């Protein structure tokens, strides 16, 4: 106890120090590093928040601290409140004016979205009561990824206006999802839950552009349905009203993956395309393409690029999109520079035989839940396009592969669908984030890796940077004596390393500069 006293005196003094290139928070009873994140405006880091249990008030109640700092880690606000010990923060986001935190109360079955303004004061609170079915479905999907490594994100900013939330939901017997919009201008909310035309709905929020919320929906008529109907849905950001619901079958079967807003303010939907009669859940794609869809659902721009013809000029690619030694590509992000050039940032993955899956099947006479196929996540890829989306170059950046055991049945899923599964259900990609400078002349792609050298065995944090017309790479060895560690984005060209020392109940936080 005497030792604690000395530490606390030090802590108390630290509160008065003005410099803050390194921060240490003492007496952190419980911390989940996922409960800390960068507060970003676009790709620019404006600050950080740290949410942790700071005291135990009684058997059922904890004191929580939500610490908000600026981007130099100077403490701006400590929001302290007491609540049930069953409360945890699932996600957070910042939309340029306000912060939102999604709290989950496991005991009371509620999701609570709390909005904080730039003055650090709570503005609004939106509570969603969960049914027992909802809770069970969430636990088997969204909440099952509630661990340190998860990369699931279901809370998205709409710049200066509000936030979109996408969570799994149950409606009667249907397995569906719920899109909620929470305004930060006034207390206003709308929800959208698709229930027609299917029994099971998988929904992906693609992005928001010019007042339209774009969703990709796969509708399954039954749980055994292997050929889902792919729809592109547009909702009004203002009211949540359905603006359009179109099939993604056009010249080809198109499978939307993301919406990226480029410099002209237009949102372009990136996706892979398949032959018109293909099964997008099973067959290989022919290539990748870009769509621009207006608020009425009219496709005003279409561009299709074949794997072997267009990308094949720069890399060894076969007609099914398999790149030599790389596998298939999952596109994480697109950035456009001030000179008009566009870079697509992707990561490779390929199917491989799983020794564990095969052995399990043999031992369990085929009843094993593990697939005989595993996924090997491979390298990073950067593809350069001109402003007309013609491929102008491509380069693969090698990293160490990591293997993911797949659930049974994964062998029969298309590579494009598999990519989404790795991203959203398994959190298997190493890609972390991309940052771009305000002048749009440089960008940095960050990802994690694992090294096994004679000098170092542990995780690394890596960067591919583009500036002044050239690419450079860098990596930081992040292994330390800490019980757990995590890396968050810093100002452009920097990262923030979080290290939790469980024995000392201490959270150390410091910056590292990328080269």
């Amino acid at each position, binding site marked *: 106890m005497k030792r604690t*006293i000395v530490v606390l005196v030090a802590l108390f003094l630290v509160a008065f120090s003005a410099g803050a290139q390194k921060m240490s928070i003492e*007496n952190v009873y419980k911390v989940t590093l996922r409960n800390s994140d960068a507060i970003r405006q676009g790709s620019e880091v404006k600050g950080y928040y740290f949410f942790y249990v700071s*005291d*135990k008030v009684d058997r059922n109640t904890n004191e929580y601290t939500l610490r908000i700092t600026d981007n130099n880690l100077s403490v701006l*606000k400590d929001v302290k409140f007491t609540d049930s010990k069953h409360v945890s923060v699932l996600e957070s986001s910042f939309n340029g004016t306000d912060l939102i935190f999604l709290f989950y109360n496991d005991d009371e079955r509620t999701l609570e979205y709390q909005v904080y303004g730039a003055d*650090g004061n709570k503005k609004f609170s939106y509570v969603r009561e969960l049914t027992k079915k909802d809770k069970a479905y969430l636990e088997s999907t969204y909440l099952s990824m509630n661990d340190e490594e998860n990369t699931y994100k279901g809370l998205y900013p709409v710049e200066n206006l509000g936030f979109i939330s996408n969570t799994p939901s149950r409606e009667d017997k249907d397995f569906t999802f719920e899109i909620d919009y929470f305004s930060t201008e006034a207390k206003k909310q709308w929800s959208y839950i698709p229930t027609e035309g299917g029994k099971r709905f998988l929904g992906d929020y693609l992005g928001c552009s010019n007042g339209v919320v774009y969703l990709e929906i796969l509708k399954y008529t039954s749980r055994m349905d292997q050929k889902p109907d792919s729809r592109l849905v547009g909702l009004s950001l203002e009211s949540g009203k359905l603006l359009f619901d179109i099939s993604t079958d056009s010249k080809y079967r198109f499978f939307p993956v993301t919406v990226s807003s480029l410099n002209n303010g237009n949102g372009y939907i990136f996706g892979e395309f398949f032959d018109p009669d293909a099964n997008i859940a099973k067959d290989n794609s022919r290539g990748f393409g870009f769509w621009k869809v207006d608020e009425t659902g009219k496709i005003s721009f279409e561009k299709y690029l074949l794997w072997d013809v267009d990308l094949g000029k720069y890399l060894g690619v076969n007609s099914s999109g398999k790149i030599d030694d790389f596998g298939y590509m999952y596109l994480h992000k697109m950035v456009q520079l001030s000179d008009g050039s566009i870079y697509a940032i992707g990561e490779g993955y390929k199917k491989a035989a799983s020794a564990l899956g095969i052995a399990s099947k043999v031992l369990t006479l085929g009843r094993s839940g593990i697939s005989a196929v595993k996924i090997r996540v491979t390298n990073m890829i950067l593809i350069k396009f001109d402003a007309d989306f013609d491929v102008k170059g491509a380069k693969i950046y090698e990293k160490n592969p990591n293997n993911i055991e797949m659930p049974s049945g994964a062998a029969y899923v298309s590579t494009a669908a598999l990519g989404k599964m790795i991203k959203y259900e398994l959190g298997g990609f190493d890609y972390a984030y991309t940052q771009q400078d305000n002048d749009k002349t440089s960008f940095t792609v960050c990802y994690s890796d694992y090294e096994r050298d004679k000098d170092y065995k542990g995780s690394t944090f890596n960067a591919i940077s583009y500036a002044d017309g050239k690419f450079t790479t860098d990596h930081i060895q992040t292994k330390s004596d800490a019980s757990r560690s995590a890396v968050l984005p810093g100002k*452009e060209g920097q990262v923030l390393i979080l290290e939790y020392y469980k024995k000392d109940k201490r959270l150390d936080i410091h910056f590292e500069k990328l080269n």
Partner: protein
Amino acid sequence: MNPAVLIKALLFTLLSASAAYSQVITPGDLLRDDTSLRNRYLLASQAREQAPPDNADRDEAATYRKIYEEQYKDITTFWSGSEPVTDPAINGYLQSIVDRIISANPELHALDARVVFSRDWWPNAYCMGDGTIAVNAGLFIYLKNEAELAFVVCHELAHDYLRHNEKEVRAYVQKINDVAFQQDLKRIARQGYSVNRQLEDLLKVMVFDSRRHGRDHESEADTCGLRFMMHTGYDCRAMRTCLQMLDHIDDTAFYSRAPRIDSLLDFPGYPFRPSWIRKSSAIFSDMKQDASVTPAEKDSMKTHPDCANRILLFDNTWKDDGAVRQDFLVSEQKFKEIKSRFYYEIMEQCYRQDELSRNLYYALTLLVNDPGNAYAVFSVVRCFNRIRELQKNHRLEQSIDRENAAFPVPYNLLLRMLDRMRLDELESVNTAFAAAYGSQMASYPGYAAQIAELKDTSK
């Protein structure tokens, strides 16, 4: 001193238009320490290592031992490091003043004190409890005359004479081992709930109490120090001017011109990039920093009384007896020479200790106030080389300050630039800088090695 003031003072643009060296300074011209003197001082300090008092019980004795162990570790580190200035001429000058004070005050004759200048940049002087008293170069360069230095020394000698350090340790040990305090701690630990809040409340009382005693000790040292000073022949009004200077230390500068990096680092072949220092938009400007700490609590945390109150104490205590009192009694010339030399010592010490953003800022400040100063040019190239090396190995963070509202604006701009520069930009700006001064630096000792390193890294 108020921490905010200390931090502000921190960056320096160090005071007064004092003349720099007129000749070309090279690293070889910097002060050389007398290692035998330093070792003697270290041995003398170790001889005074304290033991727990005889009447201390077992718990108290253990606490005493732990504190003394830490204290002597610090003292040993100090005497073994590069901070103390033991150059015979400069130390001799300081000892002349110390001897004058001690000989004029019989009550100090038995005092076993070792007063020394330290190369540290921040404006401070301190007494370590074993007789070691340090006056930082970062304070000395702000002083206007010997009388102000004498006041600083008298104040620190008073702390030693009045055994303030010993009293503070005793108060802490007794409080920590106090039966009621321990019962409070056990009660809180037993409860298991709201532990942090209750501990914080308990400790606030303890810290505030300790700081109040600390402030009382400062006032006591001012009064006692003034009494010592009155017997020396120095003008006691120096106490007033020194305190006034400390009160405004964040607004003072050693050199009149602050460096403008957008012109100092702008070269035809490699123009300065405005994006390095462009202000990024703030989003949390409405948030009040440290909102959880009340102004009254902040006041209670101060280690020293406000300068205004200390000046008032002087005004109420000082009675002019009409005696002739001087600003200088040893050597005005030596005093000024040391001030000039100490700017270089501070710069070099920052480099030695890898305080690189400060080292670079000092060097650029010197360069803008003494254009073409060869030591400044050498320091800039060397510092950029070191920054590049640390950045490449991801070890730069501890050597570069981060922007802070308490820092001077030009320093914050430099920090912002260092924060944003990529490795190749660091190399390019250093190469352009070195090229701009290449011809005049050709024969400067050690410069060729820095250029070779720069060329090697740029390959």
